[in-house]
């Protein structure tokens, strides 16, 4: 079983977590329909290190993870608002 480190509860089995997708910047109110569609639908599909939302279901904790999506290797996890750990 793969383990993921919740910033609050420590290392837990990955089955306790839900993936929330890559962190993306929401365009402002002034954006065009095309920019909004790009935000809603398009994804950075290429592999690499990405920052993603994850949710620890048992404790209701949303947090951020830096993960290499080719190797499926989690580099760091932290709470929103916290400084990104080095």
């Amino acid at each position, binding site marked *: *079983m793969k383990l993921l480190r919740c910033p609050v509860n420590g290392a837990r089995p990955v089955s306790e977590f839900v*993936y929330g997708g*890559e962190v993306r910047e929401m365009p402002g109110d002034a954006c065009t329909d095309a920019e909004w*569609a790009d935000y809603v639908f398009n*994804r950075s*599909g290429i*592999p690499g290190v990405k920052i993603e939302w994850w949710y620890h279901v048992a404790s209701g904790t949303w947090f951020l993870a830096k993960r290499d*999506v080719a190797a499926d290797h989690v580099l760091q996890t932290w709470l929103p608002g916290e400084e990104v750990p080095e």
Partner: protein
Amino acid sequence: MAYQLLRFALASRHPETRMFRTPDRLGETYDVVVIGAGGHGLAAAYYLARDHGVRKVAVLDRGYIGGGNTGRNTTIIRSNYLTPEGVAFYDQSVSLWQDLAQDFDLNLFYSTRGHYTLAHTDSAVRTMRWRAEVNKHLGVRSELVGPEEVKRACPRIDLDCGGHAPILGALFHAPGAIARHDAVAWGYGRGASQRGVEIHQQTEVTGIDVEAGRVKGVHTTRGYVSTRKVLCAVAGFTPRVTHMVGIRTPIYVHPLQAMVSEPMKPWLDPILVSGSLHVYVSQSARGELVMGASLDPYEVQSTRSTLDFTEGLAAHMLDMFPFLSHVRVNRQWAGMADMTPDFAPVMGKTPVEGFYLDAGWGTWGFKATPVCGKTMSYTVATDRTHELIRAFSLSRFERYELTGEKGAASVGH
């Protein structure tokens, strides 16, 4: 025939005839370069040469023929989708499958088994009834059947599923079938090669030259080739290739895993799918159970497989078939599924002139191999979008015109 056989028997050497030619070097220029020697790319090349007279075609693959999702899939062929455009498209594919083996002079082990989607709850029964009615309205052979019919078609099933998920009925789709995936790739590959198409394995596309919005050529690990038309049919690698031409798409990549058991005497005739238990299963001509579950829950861009998957799927298989408890799992593997938000493909022209896409085939594209070849070869040869794929254009997202093809959910195929 008899004479040939006799000559063969008396000959001292029996060289293997090759399925396709292996040219030793890339040409300098082609009319069309197809990226990806999976079923889709090879089928498009085959129909380009056969139906459209385009002969200078090169199919390039970073690995080997059929080594992508084509050779990793569980080969379920059906057409009980939900939208008119989906049904029309897959129906055409199922009818193309019927004479493909004749066309190729190759046994594809196409085997019509009947496809049952099991319902374990009242609400699932209602959904199945709805799907049956929509299908019938669209001219697809689907009907709702009761548990006794499931038992008749598959006597070894435990209708109670261990007591916690009793089977209340099923959506029955008579044309549901399976086929030999490798043979499909080889058949198209051989047919294309016989008509002059070059197939270059171990040739990875590393860049695409675009000038003034038009395709100019392709960089590969074996040199540069110039071409004005590129067809991208690379399944789970699609985002990497669209990145080369600067096109953004909604495609995201999750692994889809599968496994097979050791071979057994035939006992499972139909194809069974259970959405609630995350299982689909059929028995191959070799007697192995070919099993799959749902998509992995998060993005991974590799073909790693996991023990969690095997354990989960095996447990659900035992709910349905307790007598399998001593049967061994022989192999497991994964493919990279190129998923879209509306479970429909992305096909046709793109904002870059001369760059055509056949992608977003996720967990359900094997069944569509022939019709994709047909429609994409037409689109590439004439630079006009084929009627059957109009609803699948990349620009539908910009127009907020998604197709809503839920019939292709990641369990169900």
